[in-house]
């Protein structure tokens, strides 16, 4: 999936900004990766290369950290990332129906990105807003008390 790859300039800028903000120390690796992931939407190989040089950390270790954490992605994501909470509390209050409707509406299975690059669908573990479950997160927006018939409208806000 080549949707969303960034040009070399913006990758280096994102890395520079992050390293300047936190410092080029090994222990700042996760804040740096978080920032770069946020800016570029994911962690391109070029970014990892650059960070490896600046922090003097072997690429293998970088990749080992980047691939461990759920919120960091080494693959390009769609313009909008839809996260669905698949943990038990959301599940027992109607999560199952919402999940089915979501997959049907987006025509995606978890982990997939749509052919036009607009949507990526992923499942996440408990987000800690269980009192208003079932919960969907699109980019930075959290939607609570979601019902299957609301999904089309919610997605339409991002057209």
């Amino acid at each position, binding site marked *: 999936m080549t949707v969303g790859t960034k040009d070399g300039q913006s990758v280096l800028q994102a890395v520079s900004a992050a390293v300047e903000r936190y410092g080029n*120390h*090994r*222990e*700042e*690796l*996760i*804040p740096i*990766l*978080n920032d770069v992931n946020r800016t570029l939407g994911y962690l391109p190989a070029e970014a990892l290369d650059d960070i490896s040089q600046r922090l003097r950390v072997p690429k293998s*270790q970088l990749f*080992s*950290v980047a691939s*461990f*954490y*759920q*919120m*960091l992605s080494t693959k390009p994501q769609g313009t909008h990332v839809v996260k669905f909470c*698949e*943990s*038990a*509390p959301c*599940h*027992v*209050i109607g999560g199952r*129906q919402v999940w*089915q409707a979501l997959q*049907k509406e987006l025509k995606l299975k978890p982990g997939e990105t749509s052919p036009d690059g607009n949507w990526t669908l992923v499942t*996440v*573990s*408990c*987000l*800690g*807003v*269980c*009192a*208003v*479950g079932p919960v969907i997160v699109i980019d*930075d927006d959290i939607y*609570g008390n979601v019902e299957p018939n609301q999904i089309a409208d919610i997605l339409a806000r991002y057209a």
Partner: protein
Amino acid sequence: MKYYRSHVLVSVDPECIKRGAHEILDALQDELVAQGLIDEVQVLETSRIGDTTDAPDMMVYPEAVHYVGLTADDIPFIVEEHFLKGRVATKFTAPVQVFTDEELSAPTGKELRVVLRNCGKIDPENIEDYIAEDGYMALAKVLTEMTPEQVIDTVLTAGLRGRGGAGFLTGQKWKFCRATQDWPKYTLCNADEGDPGAFMNRRVLEGDPHAVLEGMIIAAYAIGSSQGYIYCRAEYPVAVSTLNIAIQQAREFGFLGQNILGSNFSFDLEVRMGAGAFVCGEETALMASIEGKRGEPRPRPPFPAVKGLWNKPSNVNNVETFANVSQIILNGAAWFAAMGTADAHGTKTFALAGDGKHTGLIEVPLGITLREVIFDVGQGIKDDKPFRAVQIGGPAGGLLSSEHLDLPIDYNSLRAAGAMMGSGGLVVMDNENCMVDMARFFMEFTQDESCGKCTPCRVGTLRILEILQKICAGKGQPGDIETLEMLSDQIRATSLCGLGQGAPNPVITSLRYFREEYEAHIYEKCCPAKVCKALIRYDILKDFCTGCTVCARNCPTNAITGVRRQTHIIDPDICIRCGICMQVCNFNAIEIN
């Protein structure tokens, strides 16, 4: 401190902002200054007050008047009427319809709010609100009247036990760390709350961050630490920003930094965010993550109190544990020990989720029974359906049945029953929940979050999950239950960390207390709770079906056939058990078998 005679709360909910809340704020500011009232009337921003149709709106206290549908042009009139002439501007009022807080309502009879005492009542972004509630008084007392050893003794006598789940005596932990002759020492707060169903830590961080900070500073003094970190999960952005504001204000007031309150004790801390890994709630994985590595636990000993962050002595405590500290110092160890049971002192927050009538956060003295929590505080089951089970303790906890309803909630009783306190997530379930499905659910979570370092957890949980999935798909075989039991024992005994050791608990408890459900799935290919799709069928009842064709038209797989005005039929081979037909049927003609 300024004393205002009136407070105006303007909603800055996104809908209100769209409709001009910022213009209202500006107009209020301008008008109050023009009328010389700016030192008498305080303007505050708040979240949603009424319905979207009321926006933009505001509340005026102490009268509790709700002004709705405002424009900037209305403000001069309202200011003149309400604040100068002392008359309610009735043209703009609406009934007070305060937006309900779905997470935290007013306490019920059996509750006792210590940790949650300030949540929802103070402005978390204003340190003066916290100070007004005796905030940082405990710190002052500690720094001027107590030695570190005395602080540790007080916490030890109070009997505070770790609220993250393990329940280790907090005072004892601090004692070990203090005894280690190595510096610098680190004070760490575990704010990686990842148990599904648990959100009390999040609420405390967002609603009363200084309670946590004060606890940490006192702990740092007790153990001799100069630097601290709050490891907060990245899924809690509001908590992170609220904490950062609180830290900034605490520094400005001299509660953090060099020579705190004029003493020779110095301590500072910062927030570190996670990146989406449940296992980073395990203390050694948490420290690895702060160091910039994969969040993989390591064997203990050495314990963090001896060799922790960057191999230096470290003390890790949960958010709620820290939030209790200032109250223990102010009110005394005896006060704390008087609540709860002999070996579980104090209160505990719980997050009620699932099929109960009342869901959300509660705080009760330890020792209260499950029955009281579920049926008194929790007000029973929705629609008064029969109670089936309660899941307590998150993914390392257990599924308990009605025979446990009179069990007191304390560390030892729960452990004896095969469950554990955990961080306080309580999922209440009625009889339409399948226990095998629930066990499968928690195992899926654990499998997903396993760090992969040790074989028993990495491979063992996968094998258990495969068997559970098979059983729920109707392919269970004789011998499966025995295999599950064997695997569970092995994983519990040989996993490296608490995640793996606790992972089989939902399976073990559901087998112990709901064995008949497993047997029904395996031997009778039947799901008694009518949940597992492969084992249920949707049937149309001849006596109720009117042939209106609504179901057939809505079926996503066209599994329903029938002629108008005649009974329809569902083909079980095509049906995917989505349940839409049952939802749209107006005649209750569809049932699950």
